[in-house]
């Protein structure tokens, strides 16, 4: 961390000194590229950190520019300047947040929908800017925009721009170190898993997009006095595309990269655009190359170069878990009831009048041949699968229509069949996110305090699985067995009352399986939670549980102790073949 702070302070010092070292025209040009770089920082927040790409970011830049331009046209007091700044930040942020909420709530992942809708919005903005002449001045633009009071647009305005850039950099760097930033990265890594950890991921993404809109608006607010004119090109798709290219080439995984990209390509373009007809084609080629071959862009290359000399500028100092969070109280009525649940897709019956009740805490196993509907039953229970008829009740409440991210709040924890962890985050970061489930509120979201949280359960788990102590290791480098164990640890760290484990021992060695069984039975003894474990390995079932449910073709076939199940004729038919 110390390194990056030094590097950033040095860069800031250089930026402040530039007007004294070069001519004022150079600083004036640089000011414009720094503003574009600020917009690029917002793109980096969405794209590099959040994993979704806004293709119409110029819209927010342009809205900021039009708002501040309109206000500065009329009056020249500091009060109006400040109101211009505030409006230029808030209005784009609001629009971005609203669009984000609308789109993200229905589309999980990085799909094309968000990108294309932002592109469409930018095209719409361009059309509106051309047609709504009474607001924007139409094709000729908003002209006669005054500078800030007493500030020379070709001189000292530059320092204000550097100031705004310093603020946006500081805010973003801080933000990404808070739990909010870590959750945003978790969404990029695995959105579904993040939802099962109780996070409303569409809200997190929309908030990040709103912040990027706010920064773009702030940059636009300075663009108007800097240029003295605002034309429809400022909201348009061409600038939007260029902003994405600059951020990509400079490096989208940090907040310095986008500035480097904007400044570098900006100066090169001003020198070469007119003399070299295929300049823009060349830039597009470089962009494609960056996408295919070096996603980190220029700053990614610099980082890996420094790493060769053993200078790791990305390492974070890890705070110790000094604050032990007490265990939460168990639910009073941990009763799970499937009441005639049926799911049909087309002609295929996935669940067929499934009914069973679990009233006692402890370990219950769910077995059945492949395709019996075991995972589907868990999906119905956690809001992943909508059922046509019947209902599921948990501690007396209906779970019909529940959203996955709400399930942790009512005490349900779920481990998915495929070990789902955040590969590009460290083990420590994975565990942090799991500890935050149900414990993090809005206030904590933007403070670094939650990093010091620990629980007694975590200490127990670290005893069972010592690798959980290896804080610096990226989760993606773990073995399959360790991933299962980490996933298991993350599921139970929220201390749920109903723990759903979908094949926790799949892919484990014999030794690892023993360790996992030990950890589960230890937790079952101490926690009073209800476990439902989907398992194929009868050895595991035998060791863990004396209450077994057998499913076949979407129905409950049998229930009882393992002895009873083994003696059951129908179960034998299903498993061993034969006829009734």
């Amino acid at each position, binding site marked *: 961390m110390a390194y990056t702070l030094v590097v950033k302070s040095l860069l800031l010092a250089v930026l402040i000194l530039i007007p004294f070292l070069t001519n004022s025209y150079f600083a004036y040009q640089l000011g414009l590229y720094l503003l574009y770089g600020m917009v690029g920082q917002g793109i980096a927040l969405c794209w590099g950190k959040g*994993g979704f*790409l806004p*293709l119409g970011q110029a819209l927010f830049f342009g809205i900021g520019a039009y708002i501040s331009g309109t206000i500065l046209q009329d009056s020249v007091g500091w009060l109006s300047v400040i109101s211009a700044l505030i409006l230029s930040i808030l209005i784009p942020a609001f629009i971005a947040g609203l669009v984000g909420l*609308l*789109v993200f*709530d*229905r*589309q999980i992942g*990085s*799909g*094309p*929908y968000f*990108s*294309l*809708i932002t*592109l*469409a*919005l930018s*095209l*719409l903005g361009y*059309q*509106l800017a051309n*047609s709504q002449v009474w607001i924007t001045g139409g094709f000729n633009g908003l002209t006669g925009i005054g500078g800030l009071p007493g500030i020379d647009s070709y001189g000292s305005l530059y320092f204000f721009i550097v100031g705004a850039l310093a603020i946006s950099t500081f805010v973003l760097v801080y933000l990404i170190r808070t739990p909010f930033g870590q959750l945003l990265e978790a969404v990029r890594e695995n959105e579904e898993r993040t939802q099962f950890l109780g996070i409303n991921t569409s809200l997190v993404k929309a908030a990040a997009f709103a912040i990027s809109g706010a920064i773009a608006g702030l940059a636009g607010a300075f663009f108007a006095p800097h240029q003295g004119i605002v034309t429809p090109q400022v909201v348009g*798709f061409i600038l939007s*595309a260029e902003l*994405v*290219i600059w951020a*990509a080439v400079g490096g989208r995984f940090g907040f310095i990269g986008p500035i480097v990209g904007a400044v570098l390509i900006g100066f090169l373009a001003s020198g070469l655009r007119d003399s070299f*007809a*295929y300049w*823009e*084609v060349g*830039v*597009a*080629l470089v*962009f*494609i190359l960056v*996408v*295919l071959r070096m996603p980190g862009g220029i700053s990614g290359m610099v980082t890996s170069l420094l790493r060769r000399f053993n200078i790791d500028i990305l390492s974070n100092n890890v705070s110790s878990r000094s604050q032990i969070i007490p265990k939460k109280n168990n639910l009073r009525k941990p009763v799970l009831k499937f009441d005639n649940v049926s799911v049909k*897709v087309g002609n295929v019956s996935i669940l067929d009048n499934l009914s069973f009740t679990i009233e006692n805490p402890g370990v219950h196993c769910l077995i059945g041949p492949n395709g019996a509907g075991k995972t589907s039953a868990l999906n119905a229970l956690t809001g992943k699968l909508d059922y046509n008829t019947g209902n599921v009740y948990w501690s007396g409440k209906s779970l019909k229509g529940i959203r996955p991210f709400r399930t942790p709040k009512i005490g349900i924890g779920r481990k998915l069949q495929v070990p789902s962890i955040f590969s590009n985050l460290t083990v420590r970061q994975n565990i942090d996110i799991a500890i935050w489930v149900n414990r993090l509120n809005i206030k904590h979201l933007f403070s670094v305090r939650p990093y010091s949280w620990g629980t007694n359960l975590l200490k127990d788990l670290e005893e069972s699985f010592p690798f959980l102590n290896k804080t610096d290791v990226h989760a993606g480098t773990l073995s399959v067995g360790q991933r299962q164990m980490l996933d298991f640890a993350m599921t139970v760290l929220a201390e749920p009352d109903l723990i759903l484990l979908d094949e926790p021992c799949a892919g484990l060695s014999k030794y690892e399986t023993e360790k996992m069984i030990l950890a589960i039975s230890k937790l079952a003894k101490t926690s009073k939670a209800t476990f439902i474990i989907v398992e194929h390995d009868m050895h595991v079932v035998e060791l863990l549980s004396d209450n077994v449910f057998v499913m076949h073709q979407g129905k409950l076939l049998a229930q009882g102790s393992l002895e009873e199940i083994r003696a059951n004729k129908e179960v034998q038919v299903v498993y061993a073949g034969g006829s009734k």
Partner: protein
Amino acid sequence: MEALITFVLNFIYSSATLALIVLGLAMVFGLLGVMNMAHGEFVMLGAYSAYVVQSLGLNFIWAIPISILVCVIVGWLMEWTIIRHLYNRPFDTLLATWGVAILIRKGIEAIFSRDYKSVDQVMPGTIDILGITYPSYRLILIAIIILLFVTLFAWYQKSKTGLRIRAMVQNPGLASAVGIDTSRLSTVTFIIGVSFAGLAGVLLAPLVRVEPYIGLDYLLSSFFILIVGGLGTLEGLLIGSAVIGGSDALISTIFDKTAGYLSVLLLSILFLWLRPDGIYSRR
């Protein structure tokens, strides 16, 4: 009454052209899972082929083979150098094809300049139909598009290649295990998809302003149609084209072009919100 018939014919005409453009995008997105952000640029390449053919003084009909040749070459290059390596990385395909879109746009801009080009009407006459006079070129266009759709649909359902493509979409691993060359099939599908876009560009060229940036509009309207109609069925594609083309035409006539565009955008967001899988969905 006459105004109504004119409107209905205009509506059919605009839905048909949109359907032709979206067809290629839907093939590539639906079958290969590739959101080709450069799809509109292939429409643009088709339109420029028509312009070049006319500037050389050749018969307009030459534009069709030339545009298809151009699209096959560019599409093949694109599949070979970029798409092929990204089949399981949809987000990277989005980015890379977006880069290609900019590349093609800027390339055309560098060669032909930013100015509007106009392609002369091939068939300037009108036909009397249902009591009104209507441009004959548009009617012929509608007929060609319907014919094309019927042929493609029959080919996809009946031909061996169609069967292989369907097998590949359902289970690529199994398809290649039973001896289907899925990588070649993907290339072919991609090239056919972009060639349809190029063909649409030729047919539309006499009716629109030809400039380097027209592709974006076509990409976005195709995308809106996919949202409304859903992926995977021909009915959805046609209904989506009708809904998007119809509302755009209607609102644009009553208010202005911007309002039409706004209505289409809002409609798409509404559909995304209420029916994320579109009107006709496979699920």
